[in-house]
């Protein structure tokens, strides 16, 4: 995830305004969720994830904070790209590639357009099509639109002079040229867009009369595309309401205490509510303006029930807490409200976030902040309270009448989904079957129904059997195919956000099923499933996302490893197994299990863009064996661990791309009390990172110790074995033997056991004290501070040992306090 946060802002802004620039047929700022690393909410309910109708996506809570993106940046959907692309193709009647079109849309910086000789102009098929002599008017419009963009928004790349809001600059050559094109063109595509662009220019240039004139003459007609008309209405309304002192921003800058005023009245709000209703393009902007005021102030200004319902809906959109009351009010006032489906879906998403996610997340659920991003203003109730809310919502959805705004299939699906959340699987199955029978197989509701059906069946069976696996395989490949259809999006989203709209539902499905399987104790299938997601499902050390290996490390037992290895090594795989096993991942150098998963094309692009990491199969049997060995070591089953490590090729340990050769260094059978986890004292020792070799040596010492009859020698061997166990712990130099990260704290209790045994066996009291001192170091961690400050000044090995032995009586008191056993020995 290294690229994500840093590059949100610039690309999201550029993408958004690219869409605004050339005005698609239905420019929709869809509410598609971006998934930050630390957000683990599961949204299994995404009925319009792959919708091509251009409606708002009903993901998550707030249109103001789009999707799950807490930083408030906005994203456009695949629909916009497709529709804009298609409308241009239709208008130009020429072929050009979608990636080229997207590139042309995305470029807004005036510097990029400054040089017409650059590759962008010579190689781009869309630009080539535009520059055909027959398309002269389109090319003129394109350059003017690019040129106008610098004046046209607060966030787009502005006028290169930075003077765009100055009255005189709005009356620019661009404005004149646009007006000229508007008057001469007969093509409605260009005419509508020119008129709209002029409206925007006049708005930002504060030319209310010109704005009114263009709006009335060219756009305020019955045949004008409704959303263009409504979007222009937004500018007319806002311009009329602006403070007459248009240039006060400069004075505000120098005198920050000054404030700007807007004129608010009934007409202002009524126009804006009309914009909310009719123009997806300006919906967000209008909502933001309206919600600066309060609902209580707004309602008396609105004469009709429809407008009142819309006002309730607008404020509900901004509300991150439960909105059942608002929904009831909207249904009562205007059951045909266009925002109703969106609000209903979002309430279901809220139930998922506050009821389903904590249950799925297990340990992570202990940390509410991990998934409660919008914790302000939200009542974080108990699961019981959330269940009660889900019941109320279920009652509301059940009573809602299907009227064209809410489709019957959608209603049954919602009921089914809420039953699923409430663990009422029979009812869920019944409504899901009803929904499936009602909707066409090509509709997105059908996809949602398939997803629900799979989830319900899994809950009922409590295992992923072969028929379910086959169904799951069909679903996953279908979603991948949708992703391929929208492949052009990769350039715009995936490289930067690791997010693809058509894959977000797939990710959430995998997480839901994977986490459910984990709860059922099926670690193998959970890991195989979770490996298919781009979305993190938990935090590993240092806030990095968990991967399949950390799941195995945390949950798998000996038999799980065997089962997984059997699947990985099988000569014949089912479709589903093949799908999971062939997953690719970026492997980062110098990390033990530093993987980043994702779809292959995306990963390849990341690699080519960043030269960072390499692309390898996600599943590696050597790594599974390594984790299996670690598991057995923690069970103190050295023989089984050795067997596991022996299955790993020797080159695996010495490969410089892995962490082993960097961390399994020094002599693990010697522990320097001053440098217990460093190998600086062991420069003469030949490093051997092979875990199997280490365990063989350890077993050899154990055998010697068992046979040894000389107590002093036996004690010495115990001390050496104790050192080996200490080295394998998180404070030792061989910590990678039993830990996956250097930030873990696993220590083997066997180290203390062998040190104590050495102390008991040693006849020489001073030598016994020496062993006992190791045994009594706190939690096996040898810290000179815990011994005595007098000792810390003695750092030379032999000299230090002499003094230690000499001064042993001085430590008797220390040991007495720590361990009576030592006092007894002394």
């Amino acid at each position, binding site marked *: 995830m290294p690229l994500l946060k840093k590059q949100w802002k610039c690309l999201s802004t550029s993408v958004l305004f690219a869409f605004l620039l050339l005005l698609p047929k239905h420019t929709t700022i869809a509410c598609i969720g971006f998934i930050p690393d630390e957000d683990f909410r599961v949204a299994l309910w995404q009925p319009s994830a792959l919708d091509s109708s251009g409606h708002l996506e009903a993901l998550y809570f707030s249109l103001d904070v789009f999707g799950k993106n807490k930083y408030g940046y906005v994203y456009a959907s695949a629909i916009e790209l497709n529709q804009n692309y298609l409308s241009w193709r239709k208008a130009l009647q020429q072929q050009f590639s979608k990636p080229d079109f997207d590139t042309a849309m995305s470029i807004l910086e005036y510097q990029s357009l400054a040089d017409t000789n650059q590759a962008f102009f010579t190689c781009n098929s869309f630009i080539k099509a535009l520059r055909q002599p027959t398309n002269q008017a389109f090319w003129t419009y394109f350059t003017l639109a690019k040129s106008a963009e610098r004046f046209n928004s607060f966030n787009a790349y502005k006028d*290169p002079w930075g003077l765009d809001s100055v009255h005189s600059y709005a009356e620019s050559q661009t404005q004149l040229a646009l007006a000229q094109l508007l008057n001469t063109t007969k093509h409605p595509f260009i005419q509508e867009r020119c008129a709209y662009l002029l409206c925007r220019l006049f708005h930002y240039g504060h030319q209310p009369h010109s704005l009114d004139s263009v709006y009335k003459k060219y756009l305020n007609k019955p045949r004008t595309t409704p959303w263009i008309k409504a979007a222009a209405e937004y500018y007319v309304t806002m311009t009329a309401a602006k403070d007459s002192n248009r240039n006060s921003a400069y004075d505000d800058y*120098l005198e920050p205490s000054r404030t700007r005023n807007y004129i608010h009245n009934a007409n202002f709000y009524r126009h804006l509510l009309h914009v909310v209703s009719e123009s997806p393009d300006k919906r967000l902007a209008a909502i933001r303006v309206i919600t600066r005021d309060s609902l209580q102030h707004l309602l008396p200004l609105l004469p009709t029930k429809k407008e009142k319902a819309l006002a309730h809906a607008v404020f509900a959109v901004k509300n991150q807490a439960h909105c059942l009351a608002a929904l009831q009010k909207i249904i009562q006032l205007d059951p045909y409200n266009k925002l109703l489906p969106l609000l209903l879906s979002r309430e279901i998403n809220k139930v998922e976030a506050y009821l389903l996610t904590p249950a799925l997340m297990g340990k992570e659920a202990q940390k509410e902040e991990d998934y409660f991003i919008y914790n302000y203003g939200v009542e974080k109730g108990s699961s019981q309270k959330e269940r009660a809310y889900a019941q109320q919502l279920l009652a509301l959805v059940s009573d809602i009448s299907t009227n064209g705004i809410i489709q019957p299939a959608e209603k049954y699906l919602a009921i089914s989904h809420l039953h699923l959340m409430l663990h009422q699987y029979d009812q869920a199955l019944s409504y899901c079957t009803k929904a499936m029978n009602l909707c066409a197989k090509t509709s997105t509701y059908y996809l949602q129904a398939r997803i629900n059906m799979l989830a319900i069946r899994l809950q009922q069976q409590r295992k992923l059997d072969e028929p379910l696996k086959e169904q799951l395989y069909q679903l996953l490949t279908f979603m991948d195919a949708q992703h391929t259809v929208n492949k052009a999006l990769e350039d715009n989203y995936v490289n930067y956000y690791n997010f693809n709209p058509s894959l977000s539902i797939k990710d959430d499905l995998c997480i839901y099923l994977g986490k459910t399987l984990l709860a059922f104790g099926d670690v193998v299938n959970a890991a195989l499933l979770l490996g298919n997601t781009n979305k993190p499902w938990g935090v590993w050390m240092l806030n990095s996302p968990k991967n399949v290996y950390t799941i195995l490390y945390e949950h798998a037992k000996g038999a799980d490893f065997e089962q997984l290895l059997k699947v990985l090594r099988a000569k014949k795989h089912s479709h589903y197994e093949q799908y999971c096993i062939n997953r690719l991942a970026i492997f980062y150098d110098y990390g033990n299990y530093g993987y980043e998963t994702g779809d292959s094309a995306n990963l390849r692009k990341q690699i080519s863009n960043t030269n960072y990491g390499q692309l390898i199969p996600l599943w590696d049997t050597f790594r599974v064996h390594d984790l299996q060995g670690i598991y057995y070591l923690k069970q103190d089953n050295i023989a089984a661990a050795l067997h596991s490590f022996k299955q790993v090729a020797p080159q695996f340990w010495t490969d410089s791309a892995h962490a082993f050769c960097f961390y399994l260094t020094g002599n693990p059978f010697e522990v320097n009390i001053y440098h217990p986890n460093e190998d600086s004292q062991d420069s003469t020792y030949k490093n051997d990172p092979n875990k199997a070799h280490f365990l063989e040596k350890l077993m050899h010492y154990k055998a010697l110790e068992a046979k040894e009859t000389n107590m002093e020698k036996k004690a010495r061997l115990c001390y050496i074995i104790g050192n080996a166990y200490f080295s394998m712990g998180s404070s030792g130099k061989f910590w990678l033997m039993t830990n996956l990260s250097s930030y873990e704290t696993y220590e083997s209790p066997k180290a203390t056991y062998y040190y104590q045994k050495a102390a008991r066996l040693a006849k020489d009291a001073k030598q016994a004290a020496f062993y006992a001192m190791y045994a009594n170091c706190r939690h096996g961690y040898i810290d000179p501070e815990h011994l005595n400050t007098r000792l810390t000044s003695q750092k030379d090995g032999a000299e230090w040992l002499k003094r230690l032995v000499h001064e042993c009586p001085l430590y008797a008191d220390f040991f007495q306090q720590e361990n009576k056993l030592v006092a007894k020995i002394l």
Partner: protein
Amino acid sequence: MLQLVTIKQITTRFFVVFVIATLCCFGCKRQPKHPTLGFYHWRMMGNHSYSQSDSAITLRCGQVFIKVMDVDWSDIYGAYPTATFNCDSLFRNHWDTFTAPVTPVVFITNRTLEKIDSNQIAALANKILLKTEILHISTNPFYYSQPPPPPPNTPLHYHALQIDCDWTVQTRNKYFQLLQALKQQQPSLLLSATLRLHQYKYPKQTGVPPVDEVYLMCYNTGQLKSPKEENSIFTEAAAKPYFQQAASYPVKMNIALPFFSWTVIFRNGQFVGLDNQIEDSFFSFPPYVRPLSGNNFELLIDTVLHDRLLHQGDVLRHETISEKSLLQAANLCKKALNQPEFSVVFFDIDHVNATNYAAIEKAMEVFKH
């Protein structure tokens, strides 16, 4: 007695008159000069970490010329500002030591003047003035964000403006028209322009810019792209002819002296680029370079320097300004002065430090006598 007194008085008066007359004569011949020390700040990006000693230097500085933008031409956008001043790059932590007044400098390309329509020049002048206002305000550390555009008729917060342009005979008319428009729109503005040596030597052919004062750039005298060139920044031999038989310039003259270094890169005898970030110490590092004749060095390995791939065998000409060259330049430029009060501005402040500041002081001494 009276007579004696009278004679004594007369003698005394005569002596006083004589002394005054003599002083006047000497005074006429050797007028006291008052050069003001200044520096150019040309870097647009990055941070300049001024040290304590640098701060001491800046205290003696009488004015700072900050390049705030280039104006270039785009087919789509027309004249547009590029390489604009980044307010974070300058003096953010050292503003208090920079008490000297700031003069914004705008560089305009010849391409812009070639392409722009004459009737757009007044608008361009207005844009330059307003944009400079924004950028000038952003040099003030108390404003941490980019200011919004100023409204029309806003009084400007800067009092002097310098335009830098290597105008040609073809672009002269439009350039002068632009300068006139600037002055017309802001009559109180102290408008200055940079002057190349050839423009100084041949005012009749190149024209005299309609400004309040000019700054004679006594550098870039050689052929940068020629491998045979010894030092393209300045050589006395190359600069001297420009000062021979040059008439007094009709506009108040100030001096700009070189105080920078750069490295010119050649591959197979062809110019491939310029790097102004390679430090002197690089050339005393044997594994990388081998000295050739003069200030030329041969690169011994393939390497990447400041994001540029250099190949083994590339020849690097490291051009610097020695104290001797600086004094030669000062002595030459002195001849061009036409007023007792003038500025001597060094290009640029990035290269000034406590060690080499002595050379600047010596150069300033040249102008005082």
